[in-house]
């Protein structure tokens, strides 16, 4: 009985490890300019020439959207965010097709109206 329980426990741990739940080696801290609106939900990583479509859980998307609306008065202004996230290697669909890839934002750390001068936006391929 104890042996069977132990076996089940080991199997469960192995399944969790294989699925990658809670473990992500590619997770990094990013600083970026963020833009949101109808047909737009993107981050432009500071001092890079890439712009990524944002993917996130509903809770995080809600935090981004509410923060963005609180800080902006006209559509399609850029704000500054810091976040934990990772690039996703997935086929782009929808409005995201015009971007350089998907960026999963797993945790929004800060959001501010003013973009620091050291966070430049290099031109992107449109």
């Amino acid at each position, binding site marked *: 009985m104890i042996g069977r329980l132990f076996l089940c426990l080991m199997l469960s741990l192995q399944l969790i490890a294989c699925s990658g739940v809670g473990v992500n080696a590619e997770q990094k801290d990013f600083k970026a300019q963020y*833009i949101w*609106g*109808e*047909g*737009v*939900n*993107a981050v*432009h990583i500071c001092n890079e020439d890439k*712009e990524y*479509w944002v*993917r*996130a859980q*509903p809770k995080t*998307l809600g935090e981004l959207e509410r923060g963005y609306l609180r800080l902006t008065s006209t*559509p*399609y*202004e*850029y704000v500054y965010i810091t976040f934990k996230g990772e690039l996703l290697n*997935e086929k782009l*669909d*929808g*409005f*995201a097709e*015009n971007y350089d890839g*998907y960026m999963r934002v797993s945790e929004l750390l800060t959001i501010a109206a003013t973009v620091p001068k050291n966070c430049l*936006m290099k*031109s*992107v391929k*449109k």
Partner: protein
Amino acid sequence: MQNSAAGTIGGVASTAGVGKFTNGFTTGAFDYAFNDKQLHGKKNSRALKSPTGKGVRGKDNWGGGHYGASRGSRSHDGVDYVSDSGQRVVAPMSGRVVRHSHPYADDLSFDGIVIRANDGAEVTVWYVDVSEAVKMNGMIAAGDYIGTAQDLTGRYPNITNHVHVRLHDVKGKSLNPQGY
């Protein structure tokens, strides 16, 4: 106000439409297509059929709906045709229905389809509850029913409801659906 203005533009275009589009782009009595020559003064240019029978979304709190409207560092890749939530939506051009397409990967409730013309150009129509009658890989003619317009105001409060139409040529180059 913007709705009515856009609707009027669409109505004028519908009345004035001459139905002389070429290369398989059909027009008919039930045709709200824009006469691009009249709108843009370009000879021999083509225009896609408005899928809602209405005009282009004017500027609201969420930006403008015309091709090339500002979207931050980018521009609007397509045209937004004003819609009433739940209204019928028709195909803007003839071709083969090649796939479903969702505008937002994180919200699959918004739907659409991609239609490929004989010359390889692809038109994408978003914010449509696609009818089950629309068969993937099936042929469709401009003006055929494809579904009903979706309501965007839950996601974007006070936005002018619309159907987004995007046109890319066979090489993937963006084209203005109102004149190309």
